[in-house]
């Protein structure tokens, strides 16, 4: 009971009177380092008030740079940054009213936990009683009350992470910035904190920009997810849209685990089908439209999600591939079946980028002259055995078609 009333009271007792909420905007932000490296290229991003947005991409994609520019720790070479309707491009970090959680937590090692949490408030010359109230509120929110007298080195990794969160939560900033806050935690703790961060966000409703290289973290946490590659925004949308309508092969490959299967096929004679590894796949009206400007016989990049495959014949599943499993991984709830498809791999820059960046999500098989490595995620009941040929079914409408040259989706809605 007491805790509930405290929670209700505390935000109102904050420095600003009433909770400040604000969106975040990037207008054509570019960043080139002195050595000529381009970290960000003309980033346009509009984050709504109270939204939880995740910036995701392989390392070196510019996501951390974008966050540091937002915090004012790095100066953009071009463009404008707006927080809550206020242009902050020229402002120092102190004046931006954002709170940040660092990857290595960056706690003040010589201060106790209480002093760590109180520091942002003390700087703002908030009366002692209010500081105590806020610190106690945030300590309880994060389950740190017992530890307030300790110094950071006497805390576990998970507790330090909570303190870093607490130091951001203790005041009411216009936005929370989080730079891979969970990457130093073990897997179990990461899943727990993922849910907790999301829970806290839903309760406080403060605009949050969250940076990670982990696509699962991005998909599960973000209201919307911005996928970056080589400093260029690839797509910014709802996680479901990223999964079902990726704008290019990079996004298609980056989102989803195991990663999407990609191979080159050919456009059929009357543009109503595609040929993939000696199989003719008849297309529905929607997909036919996508091939309208392609000439028959020309190559097209085809993407099929591992989840699209099934071992059951089903009227819905109008297409199939004859495969010989080379590796079967039993995961209990499902089977991962690896096989090769006699088709050339997709070699656009974007397709290679995720394959190199995220070894975890690509197939264990390598692309060889024999064909391109595919993986299917099948029901646990399916009895796929290594070396025994099988027919795997999938729905042609779940296929994704891409331009084989530039990797862009052929779906005009994507």
């Amino acid at each position, binding site marked *: 009971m007491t805790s509930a009333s405290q929670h209700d009271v505390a935000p109102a007792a904050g420095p600003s009177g009433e909770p400040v909420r604000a969106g975040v905007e990037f207008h054509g932000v570019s960043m080139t380092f002195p050595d000529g490296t381009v970290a960000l290229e003309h980033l346009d991003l509009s984050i709504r008030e109270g939204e939880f947005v995740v910036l995701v991409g392989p390392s070196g994609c510019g996501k951390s740079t974008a966050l540091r520019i937002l915090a004012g720790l790095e100066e953009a070479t071009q463009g404008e940054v707006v927080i809550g309707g206020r242009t902050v491009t020229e402002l120092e970090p102190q004046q931006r009213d954002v709170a940040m959680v660092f990857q*290595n937590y960056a706690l003040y090692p010589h201060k106790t936990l209480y002093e760590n949490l109180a520091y942002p408030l003390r700087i703002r010359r908030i009366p002692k009683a209010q500081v105590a109230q806020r610190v106690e509120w945030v300590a309880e929110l994060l389950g740190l009350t017992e530890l307030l007298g300790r110094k950071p080195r006497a805390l576990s990794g998970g507790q330090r992470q909570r303190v870093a969160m607490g130091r951001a939560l203790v005041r009411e900033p216009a936005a929370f910035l989080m730079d891979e806050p969970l990457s130093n935690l073990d897997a179990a703790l990461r899943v727990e904190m993922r849910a907790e961060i999301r829970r806290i966000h839903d309760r406080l409703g403060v605009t949050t920009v969250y940076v990670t290289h982990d696509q699962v973290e991005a998909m599960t946490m973000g209201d919307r997810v911005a996928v970056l590659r080589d400093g260029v925004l690839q797509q910014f949308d709802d996680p479901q849209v990223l999964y079902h309508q990726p704008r290019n092969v990079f996004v298609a490959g980056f989102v989803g685990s195991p990663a999407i299967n990609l191979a080159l096929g050919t456009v059929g004679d009357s543009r109503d089908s595609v040929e993939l590894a000696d199989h003719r796949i008849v297309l529905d009206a929607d997909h036919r439209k996508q091939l309208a400007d392609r000439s028959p016989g020309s190559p097209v990049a085809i993407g099929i999600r591992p989840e699209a495959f099934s071992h059951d014949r089903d009227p819905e599943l109008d297409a199939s591939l004859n495969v010989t499993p080379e590796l079967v991984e039993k995961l209990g709830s499902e089977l991962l079946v690896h096989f090769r498809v006699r088709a050339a791999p997709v070699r656009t820059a974007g397709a290679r980028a995720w394959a190199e960046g995220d070894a975890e999500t690509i197939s264990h098989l390598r692309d060889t002259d024999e064909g391109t490595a595919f993986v299917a995620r099948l029901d646990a009941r399916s009895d796929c055995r290594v070396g025994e040929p099988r027919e795997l079914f999938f729905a042609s409408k779940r296929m994704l078609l891409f331009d084989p040259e530039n990797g862009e989706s052929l779906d005009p809605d994507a």
Partner: protein
Amino acid sequence: MSAVTHEAAVRRGRRRQRQRRLTVVRGVVAGVMTLLFMGPILWMISTAFKVGNQAFSATPTIFFAPTFDNFRSVFVKSQFGSALATSIFTATSSTILALLLGAGIAYPLARRRVRGQQHLAFWILSLRIVPPIVVIIPLFLMLRNVGLTGSVWSLVVIYTYMNLPLTVWLLRGFFADLPVEIEEASFVDGASRLRSFFGITLPLALPGVVATALLAFIFAWNEFLFANILTGANTRTAPVGLTEYVTPVSVEWTNIMAAGTLVVLPVWIGALAAQRYLVRGLTLGAVK
């Protein structure tokens, strides 16, 4: 008990024995070395409490009734106290100045991307490579031109200048070792650069700062060459004061030893007090 476990126990026992023997050997070696280094100092201190003929007896006197006559004579007859006071003043103020200026140079060198900063850092260090005797005459002429010869301020200026390379070089290393994110966190939390420096950076670098301060202090405290040439009769420092007991007639050994004891004492006390910081400071960065 089976034969195997018995054998293992015996082997363990032997290993433990060997380790114990090694510890003893180490202890003896360390003791001998300590005695070797401490010997002259202990001798100096004991001689400071002896009367003349005790100090010069062929077989060293170990047990004797201590006398404070030497200290009395050092303080009363030769006013060694004022030399000590001058030393404390010059060493302390030049250390503080060198630390303040040094930190001011070291911090940006550690944090900002400055073009050619390796060269700059090396150049600063190279000031220390030149033997002091090379610059003594030009410095003397310069100081005479501004009327500072014979004044304690000339020593404060010189010691600060001599210590600056050391403090810049050491402090730069200590600052650079602090994770920059801690300062960035402080900026984002709303603290100004100055407040972050004094509230976060400096306390975290304190072991390094104390170690640096002690080294700078010892240098200024022990300095003889400049002090001998640049000071007048009323502004002698302690090391210069020691030479007064070497007269054309005799060398007053017991007085030299008493004064020498007084010279060693402050540094000794300072080092003991700062021991905790000193060990941490000098190994900071070496071990993460």
